[in-house]
């Protein structure tokens, strides 16, 4: 029985791997760039400055880190400052059930699943390309907001940001929320 069980498990695993492999070949190439943030290029080595004897060598220039918001990520403080100077379009990338249970006041629901059918969600046509957009999801390291933000950028919404702390961070900070019953 043990031998047959192991043999069958191997057959099942191979069949599943084959199905996955062929499906991945038939599917359009996956774009994982929203998850894979390439590290900024390492600074080129600086030529050694010739120094006179007895003179202290010049300190090497310190590379300036790229601010998070320039990569499209914003924290609570920056989000609040953007909210304080409207107009701003705030989008909730969670599923409608979670949105109805509670969302950031004034946010509109644009769940990630709305993009899965392949078409353009209706709400996207109502958004303005001239105004900044902030997308959020559950918080932590959830992917829905990054995914929606990437799709929006591809559609020409260049000033799209992701509020990285998400709804969890917002409620923890005691900020106002709306509930639809």
């Amino acid at each position: 029985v043990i031998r047959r069980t192991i043999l069958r498990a191997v057959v099942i695993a191979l069949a599943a791997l084959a199905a996955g492999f062929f499906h991945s070949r038939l599917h359009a190439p996956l774009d994982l760039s929203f998850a894979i943030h390439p590290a900024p290029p390492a600074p080129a080595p600086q030529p050694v400055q010739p120094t006179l004897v007895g003179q202290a060598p010049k300190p090497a220039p310190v590379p300036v880190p790229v601010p998070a918001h320039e990569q499209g990520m914003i924290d609570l403080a920056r989000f609040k400052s953007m909210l304080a100077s409207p107009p701003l379009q705030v989008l909730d990338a969670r599923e409608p059930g979670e949105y109805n249970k509670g969302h950031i006041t004034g946010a509109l629901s644009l769940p990630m699943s709305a993009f899965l059918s392949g078409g353009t969600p209706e709400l996207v046509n109502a958004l303005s390309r001239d105004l900044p957009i902030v997308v959020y999801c559950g918080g932590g390291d959830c992917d829905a907001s990054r995914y929606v933000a990437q799709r929006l950028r591809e559609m020409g919404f260049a000033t799209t940001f992701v509020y990285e702390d998400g709804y969890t961070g917002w409620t923890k900070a005691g900020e106002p929320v709306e509930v639809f019953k």
Partner: protein
Amino acid sequence: VTSTPISPAPSPGAACGTPVCSAIPLVLRLVLGGLFILAGISKLQNPAVFGGAIYKFDLGLAESQIKVLAFAIPWTEIITGTLLVLGLMTRGAALVLLTMLAGFTFGIVRLIAAGKSVDCGCFGQLKLFCGDAPLGACHLIRNGIMMAAALVIMVMGPGRLYLDRCERRLRRARDGQCIRCGYDRAGLPPIACCPECGDNPRA
């Protein structure tokens, strides 16, 4: 020919005798299989997001490998889930699920130990059981319960209402064995009753 009746070989689903006992694996099969079918379908609806979740497990895989895994893992879940629900190759399917769950749990423990907060993408968009909670005890307990269920199915077999029975009968017929008890019928006339269990092949 033995004079004392020999009970037929135990069926693969008969690890216990009482109806209630044999219903346990059936319930576990349906629940676990259904959950994994749902999880697999949910992941296949958006493989890019699941691929992103795999990437964050930091397994040292190349992007091309992640892209294949983003399809292979959901397909494994759908196939094993379907086999569990049908009760076909039940123990093998349970072993695959057990191995997969052990791998997921190991990955989660690694991330927790590294202090990383990652959306595991375990149930795709469904967010079952642990919702948006950061990786932690909830995920480990959930996986532990599912692993225990898979182990019970492996040990007890499919229980009731399973297709393994049909597969076993076909295999015995092909191998020239008594369909009921597995006795080797080599040398017996085709219409002779089984000398072990008395099964009548004409019936």
